[in-house]
């Protein structure tokens, strides 16, 4: 009787583990995106068009335009070398600390006009650990 109970228990545990595995697997296929820099995005060429991507870069402060009336935020980001730029448009709230050279990740798609339409932005919170000279 003990053996049977133990067997059942192990079977139930395996079932739970499998369900968790399937849950993770499904969620990953549904909610994972490529994580690349601006030059890497351009290097992908037309393959990048319309594909869910997360692009990281630094904000170019003089390109930031915020239209609160329609909640539209447009700006350009660039990589560390500053050579390639990407124009991003985002509908939503303008995050605080949206300043020049601040790192940002934009989640969204590259459209055929060459503009990146973001549906989510991740902004670093103010530094606790940065080197001297930065603001904060």
């Amino acid at each position, binding site marked *: *009787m*003990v053996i049977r*109970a*133990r067997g*059942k*228990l192990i079977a*139930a*545990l395996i079932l*739970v*583990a499998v369900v*968790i595995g399937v*849950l*993770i697997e*499904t*969620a*990953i296929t*549904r*909610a*994972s*995106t*490529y*994580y*690349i820099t601006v030059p890497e995005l351009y290097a992908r060429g037309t393959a990048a068009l319309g594909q869910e991507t*997360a692009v*990281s870069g630094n904000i170019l402060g003089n390109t930031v335009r*915020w239209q*609160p*009336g329609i*909640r539209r935020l447009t700006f350009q980001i660039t990589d560390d070398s500053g050579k390639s730029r990407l124009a991003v448009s985002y509908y939503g*709230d*303008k*995050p*605080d*600390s*949206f*300043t020049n050279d601040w*790192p940002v*990740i934009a*989640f969204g798609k590259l459209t055929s006009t060459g503009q990146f339409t973001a549906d*989510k932005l*991740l*902004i*670093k*919170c*103010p*530094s*606790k*650990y*940065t*080197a*001297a*000279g*930065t*603001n*904060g």
Partner: protein
Amino acid sequence: MAGTLGQAAIRLLLVTVCASLVVQTQAIRTRSAAWRTAGRWLMAGAFVVAATAAGCLLKLLLLEDNHYLYVAEYTGPGLAWIYRVAALWGGNAGSLLFWVLILTLYGAMVSWSRHDDSERMLPWVAWILSALTLFYAVILNVAVAPFARSAEPIPMSGLNPLLQNPGMTIHPVNLYLGFIGFSIPFAYSISSLILGKTDATWLVVTRRWTLASWLFLSIGILYGAHWSYEELGWGGYWAWDPVENAALLPWLTATAFLHSAIVQERRHMLTRWNHVLVILTFWLTVLGTYLTRSGVIWSIHAFTNSALGAYFLALLMAVGAASCAILIWRWRVLRGGPPMTAVVSRESAFVFNNVLLVGCTAGVLLGTIFPLLTGWLDGAEKVVDNGYYNGVILPLAVCVLILMGMGPLLPWRHTTWRLARRAVGYPLAAAVVIGLALALVLYMPAGRLPVLGTSALVAAVFVVASVLLEYAQIGRLVKGASARVTTGGALRWMRTERRRLGGYLVHLAVALMAMGIAASGAFHVSEQKQLAAGDPPVRVAGFSLRFIGMTVDNVGDDRRMSANLVVEQGGKTLGLIQPAAVFYANGQSPTTEVALYSRPFADLYVVMLGTLNGDEAVFDIHVNPLVQFIWMGGYLFMAGTLVSLWPERRHRAAELPAWHPVLRIRKQQEDARSDHQAGKLGNAAYQALQSELRYQLVDAEAVQVEVRERMARELSRWFGPVEADRLLGLLEYGSE
């Protein structure tokens, strides 16, 4: 002066810790009391040295001596003293010094404690803690320089206004206290593995450490969530950011451990699993530190990209490899205890809860390191977004809640399906009715009825029902007892079952928090409105908001622009709220101040997105139902954990079952009796169980008598019969 002294203290720390390692090794090798005493003093000495270094840095920060790089980086002219104190752990070098301070404090506390078999265990524990301290001491001496000084004053950076919040003091300190605290159970677990101890001494000794560290970590996480909720742009109370996940991971495994430890204590089961969980918890704290300090993963929290990553990676691998080796070496020694006898029982509920919590851990861990993994495997980095975490963790959390409700309703050992259905069925049915009613109330303003949110509400109500039933049963037992024994008996009973009472309070708190998270996550209402002063009021989820104009005022050198909104509900004016934007004189980018109007059942959360044409403004208006339940649940959570933690005058009495077979069997008899009285255990099963336990008790008592006689013989040979009697009295645990 303070700088020189601090620097000297950091060098001396390295020497002290090395000396401690040598002395602990000697204490282990020779088993001599003199070496043990020396080892204890060295552990205390390490703390004094670390405290001196930290004190020096604190003094420099308070004096704002900007010849020191660290002071210049993390303080600014006119910064309030509280934030100058907080700068001690605000920066990289300082936080490492603070880490050493806490670790050596814990180490000193442990090495001056006394418990069963402490003479054998403590040198090992102290050795492991010294080795860990050595790691940080090396970093402080080699990789970072908290006391780096320049001949000329360095221009000061100041602290970002977003961080000038009391959260800066409470949140990180609690996280550190929790994170570092898990080193102690780890050290005990490894020590008892090395010594080949199969009993649960380490578990009894470290229960309080684990619980306290878990409490600190919980407070840290909750406070961080609260702070984040009140700051715009930090993504509400939880964003599944890698740094948040780094704190959540050890919390999940520690929660699992706190539950499986009960099973080992009561039933002597899951002995191996408990070691695995404690080691995993500690390893995850190291992983979290590595992730947050190495810059390998992008986070909204600022990271350093310093060379520290390599150090923490080395520690991570060393801890992982050494722990695995020791576990494999001792695997056979750790007997499994009695097998599980049923699929449905209290202990199997604990096991399933453990599997789910570890499943959550795996899910969060995978999501957090997904960019690293895909980078290594594929060459192309991929990230997961919130959809991943919500898709994996939320369903599992609902299952955890259901098990939280079921566990206390099931008896130990085994039950029949019929009894289990009866025990669980009624409260579950009640929970479905009340949970659905609650969801319908929330549905009215939100206009949607999501399956996950609704089932989370039902599950949370189920937990509440289960806790209330357990309290009712405790009440009945106390009443039954007091009919014969008076209130003194009731009080005594409450004292002995205090841990259980506290544990159920925590369950209640978690249920409240789950309701808050489910309601605010799934049933919130949000609307964006562009308003001119004097426009007709806007209605959002029962609240009505009227924009009456802007105010501009000066705060020091900075300018604050606030919108004035009158809030009304049901024709009654509730008050004025002022979402604002602050413009800084130093050219820093403006920040937004959220206007929050909290009521017990819903928060009105208004953000001013921007202004137009001088007198118009755009508002983002949210109504978040039951958010207050999260914070209220948090306070209850702390209270419940404190009830469990509170020191007892005769605390050994309550914890004894774990290490004395006779007492364990008596405790099991008591459990069976109360399970039977509560109707969780049928008559036949109860009789069978009691007779089985009677036989076990007779055996265990026979062993006890034999051991006692042998001890009496040995002791009287050495000390004479009178002294032997006294000593035996001191050693006696089992007899009454």
